[in-house]
């Protein structure tokens, strides 16, 4: 598995990086999208992409920069979603407390971050493949617990009618406001990850990934660093989780069921865990497949239910042939093209 690629050194802080034209184009497309895309695209496709992208981004941060493949991120997101339903308002009046939004949002994020941190503290005691197994096991424990517990998590049925607050007189569940809300949050989270990756904390995390023993011999508390990275990732995941519960207007154990947990991994890996943009690419591919593959399958005379098969096979093919995801494919393709064009100087970047 390839790791996050080395970039320009921290020693020259690149505050005003020269942003390639393609980024400006992307920004323009994203900002103007409501003008030319329909509500379904805005809400179902793009909104969902951003939300899943954020949750997968938190996995990318841990896996790409920290070398820790954590499968707990979806559970952390769901935890935040549950807390919004519990401390805010929902259709389950017995449990929900109906606090104002400026109270329940921070509470939700803090509780989810504590949850993620505790799991991280358990998981970092082991390494590599063990992290995957342990976080998967804890994620499933969370799923079964929410399904069994009725006093807090309202068991099987969960919470319905969980909607965003009517802030500034805007209904944030309307397609256009929701689109901009998720776009804004995703942009912030993306920016935060990119920024932190070059800050001492992020650099040190990459050092821990490459060589934990040396990091200790440089004066770093490796365990504390790993646990702190879980906290940071949990905050990102919980923002995604809050948006997710608002989009669906409900949350239930299945939100963080094993298939959902695996989906986040699939998304991050499909996109590529070497760069923060990867999870969003993966999420877009996943959402497009998920939304449109039933039609395609039906057109080929197969049942629309075979969608999972399609995703699974695509995922398999990808990890077989390009362990670093679509981003890796793209980079290799570009490198080959550049080589062909100019054998002396190599790539253009």
């Amino acid at each position, binding site marked *: 598995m390839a*790791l*996050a*690629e*080395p970039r*320009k*050194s*921290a*020693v*020259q*802080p690149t*505050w005003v990086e020269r942003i390639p034209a393609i980024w400006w184009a992307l920004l323009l497309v994203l900002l103007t999208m409501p003008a030319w895309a329909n509500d379904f695209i805005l809400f179902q496709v793009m909104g969902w992409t951003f939300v899943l992208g954020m949750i997968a981004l938190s996995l990318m941060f841990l896996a790409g920069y920290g070398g820790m493949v954590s499968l707990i991120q979806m559970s952390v997101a769901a935890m935040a979603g549950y807390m919004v339903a519990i401390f805010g308002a929902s259709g389950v009046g017995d449990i929900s407390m109906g606090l104002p939004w400026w109270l329940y949002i921070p509470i939700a994020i803090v509780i989810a971050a504590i949850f993620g941190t505790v799991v991280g503290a358990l998981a970092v005691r082991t390494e590599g493949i063990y992290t995957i197994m342990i976080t998967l096991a804890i994620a499933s424990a969370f799923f079964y617990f929410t399904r069994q517990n009725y006093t807090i998590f309202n068991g099987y049925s969960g919470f319905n009618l969980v909607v965003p607050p009517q802030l500034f007189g805007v209904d944030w569940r309307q397609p256009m406001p929701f689109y901009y809300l998720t776009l804004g949050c995703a942009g912030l989270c993306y920016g935060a990850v990119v*920024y*932190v990756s*070059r*800050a*001492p*904390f992020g*650099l*040190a995390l*990459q*050092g821990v*990934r*490459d*060589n934990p*023993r*040396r*990091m*200790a*011999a*440089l*004066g*770093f*508390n*490796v365990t504390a*660093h790993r646990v*702190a990275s879980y906290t940071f990732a949990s905050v990102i995941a919980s923002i995604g989780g809050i948006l997710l519960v608002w989009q669906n207007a409900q949350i239930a154990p299945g939100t963080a069921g094993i298939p959902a947990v695996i989906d986040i991994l699939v998304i991050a890996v499909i996109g590529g865990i070497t760069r923060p943009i990867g999870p969003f690419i993966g999420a877009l591919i996943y959402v497009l497949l998920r939304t449109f593959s039933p039609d395609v399958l039906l057109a080929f005379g197969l049942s629309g239910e075979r969608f999972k098969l399609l995703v699974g096979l695509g995922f398999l093919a990808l990890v077989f042939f390009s362990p670093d995801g679509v981003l890796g494919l793209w980079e290799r393709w570009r490198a080959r093209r550049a080589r062909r064009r100019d054998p002396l100087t190599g790539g253009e970047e």
Partner: protein
Amino acid sequence: MTETVPAGRLSSVSSGNALELRGVTKMFGALAAISDITLTVRSGERRAVLGSNGAGKTTLFNCVTGDFLPTGGTIRLFGEDVTRFPAYERIRRGLRRTYQISLLFNGLTVADNVYLACRGVSRGRFSFLRPRESDALIARADELIAAVHLQDWRDISVANLSYGQQRQLEIALALAGAPRLILFDEPAAGLSPTERSELIAILQGLPGHIGYIIIEHDMDVALRVAESVTMMHNGTIFKEGTPEEIENDQEVQELYLGDGHA
């Protein structure tokens, strides 16, 4: 954000011992890699450790830095009992080391490697803010890079460095912050003659309050940079003395110099 060791600690450097080992033993299963090592290194002292392959020199270093916890015995660093301390606590007290087999961050650039080393022994290890251009640590990192002649490779990923350059970088990492005792594990191995004399210059140019212990197979190098010598054999200390004493010692010559070491 910037500076490293509180002033109070620095003032205590000149007095007392940098390192005191008492009865330190490390077992790997049934094998005693080192057994019952008792050793004192004064502050600012420069000592060479010699010994054939497998004598336990690296293991001794690993116990001192806390890479491994010793099976028995006590380790005092600058007067403080650090036997059970994790490695990072010892490093923060002014201990540094290099590794016999380079342990670097291959995914990061040279500058990032050295910057991390500087950051590790200062505050702000968890800082979420990117360093500013005027950050003193960045200037310090650049000095260290220049000291080991890597300034032209500053933004190159470590994986692309030559073997000799990686050895140099190892040394730069060990000089970060305000070291008081540095453990060099065969820093000259695999260096070209030029690099070797540069290394000797660096060692000889270190300020007087910085002591070091150097493991070195090359007697010529060892005797030029050390004022005392410890000979190890089969996990125990075999002889201690000045370079002249060791060189002229009959037993040492039979054991070590006699059978034509590599």
